[in-house]
């Protein structure tokens, strides 16, 4: 019995380990490459060959010096946009998702089908008319222009709706008996048990915002207003030491989103039966 368990443990852990190594490989190789001249990677591709004596921090010095620290401006822009987008997105999508899951009302299924419709339409189709619309609001080259068209994320609504469907309705009933208003029930009773969903959605929305490229590329015109992905992508021209900053900049750009992930990881994979109705 224990021998069988040991065998299973070794087998399961090695399967997972193989996938984990593949997952980390790009990060590892780009990290290694960031200590060498970018031109070398362009010429030879990435290789299983490490010449540690040639490594230096020259690429990282460019973060502060290149074009008066333009990289750090991109960094700040990305952080501000992410905070607004994630905060508003969590609030609105949990509100709507909860409403759709926990109330029976006329038009519920229609609204839900509309949510699915929004989810399946690629943003890229709407980019031109959205650009005209944001332009008429005088929001080109502003944070608001980047955030507004995605302020009520349909994927978030879908996720919260699926999540809330599985939550016990007894909590709402007992809240009503205790004299809570419908909004009181949502904010005081339901939100706390929805924490695992908030944890997951924070990570997913933050990722989407931090790495989104196509829409910000169109709204943000001046280099000072741009976000990290657009800024980094603009370095993909074979002039000067662009590739050097690209490598160190790409490595550095992962840090904030990594922190958000590590902070939220525990809440969202934590046991969620705790605190809700038992039996």
């Amino acid at each position, binding site marked *: 019995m224990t021998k069988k368990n040991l065998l299973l443990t070794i087998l399961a852990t090695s399967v997972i380990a193989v996938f984990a190594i593949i997952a980390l490989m790009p990060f590892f190789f780009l990290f290694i490459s960031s200590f060498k001249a970018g031109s070398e990677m362009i010429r030879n591709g990435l290789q299983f060959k490490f010449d540690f004596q040639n490594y230096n921090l020259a690429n990282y010095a460019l973060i502060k010096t290149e074009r008066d620290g333009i990289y750090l401006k991109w960094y700040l822009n990305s952080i501000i946009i992410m905070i607004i987008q994630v905060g508003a997105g969590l609030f609105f999508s949990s509100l709507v998702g909860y409403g759709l899951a926990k109330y029976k009302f006329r038009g519920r299924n229609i609204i839900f089908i509309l949510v699915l419709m929004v989810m399946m*339409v690629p943003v890229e189709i709407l980019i031109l008319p959205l650009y005209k619309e944001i332009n008429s609001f005088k929001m080109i080259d502003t944070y608001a222009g980047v955030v507004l068209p995605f302020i009520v994320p349909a*994927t978030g609504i879908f996720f919260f709706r699926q999540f809330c469907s599985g939550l016990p309705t007894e909590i709402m009933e007992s809240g009503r008996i205790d004299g809570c208003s419908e909004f009181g029930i949502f904010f005081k009773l339901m939100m706390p048990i929805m924490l695992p969903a908030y944890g997951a959605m924070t990570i997913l929305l933050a990722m989407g915002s931090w790495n989104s490229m196509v829409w910000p590329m169109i709204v943000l015109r001046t280099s000072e207003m741009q976000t990290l992905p657009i800024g980094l992508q603009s370095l993909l021209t074979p002039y000067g030491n662009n590739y050097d900053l690209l490598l160190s900049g790409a490595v550095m750009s992962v840090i904030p989103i990594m922190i958000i992930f590590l902070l939220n990881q525990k809440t969202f994979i934590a046991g969620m039966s705790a605190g809700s109705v038992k039996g």
Partner: protein
Amino acid sequence: MSKQTNDNGSASVKTGGIKMMKVAPYIFTAPFVIYFLAFFVYPITETFWTSLCQQVGFAPPKYAGLANYKLLIDDYFVMAVQNSALYTFFTCLILVPLPLFLAVLLDSKYVVKPEIFKSALFIPALTSVVMAGLFFRYAFSSNEAALMNSVIGFFGIPAQGWLEKRVTTWIVLIVFCVWKWLGVNIVYYLSALQTIPKDLYEAATIDGANAWQRFTFITVPCVKPTIIYVLTISIYGGFSMFAEAFTLFNSARTPGDIGATIVSYIYAQGFNRNNFGIASAAGISLLAGVLIINIIQLSITDPVGKNDE
């Protein structure tokens, strides 16, 4: 408000409560409805109108009927549609079952230090597509000593010019996509697995169910809404794939259009050539295609949950 109704006795609690219960869902869902009208209905209508017009650059549009749709059917567009459809098919084939299997493994007691592996598997999703595109371009470089060529060289397969041929290009893109989204789907499944009461498994074990039976009769039905969700986002993600191909080639156009997707077609027509009419016609065609798939999927999987009530 709630306190007041409390003082007025049980009858008014009931009527007041019921009134609130009827109004509340509309207030809860109002943000979406407003958003939907402003940032969905309006732009879609605008796109539809543009698709019927001859418009180049920002010149005033001229009504042109279905001319744009006729111009649409060329080899480049057909190639893009084929590419997107195959890409979506293969990514769904991998990205729906594989992460469920890995999530179940991670959730079992057989994996040592599962927290570390969960983080590791999720890291690709955190990495920006610019960074990942850089990696895949130079890992799949045609250089004989480059990563992928030395791996296949180990098995005696000759070095490939990965991004020069259509089949290998799409292998790279599918690997790229699986690499990027595997961890996200694992997280969806993991958080669904947490909601399954553990005593269900214990009862099943006592009744003599083996691991496979517990998986098919408890795990799968319990995470069914999540499976549907993962399938849904994989289909939509597949058809709207663009950034991956864009960063891999650093352009919306590729040599011989081997890396063309429907969205890169729209982008190239709209933003590189300023053919807004044709770009909009392609957009509306994509919309129609995805709608059809969606209706088929809705009728099979029933995510609205009519049958559950």
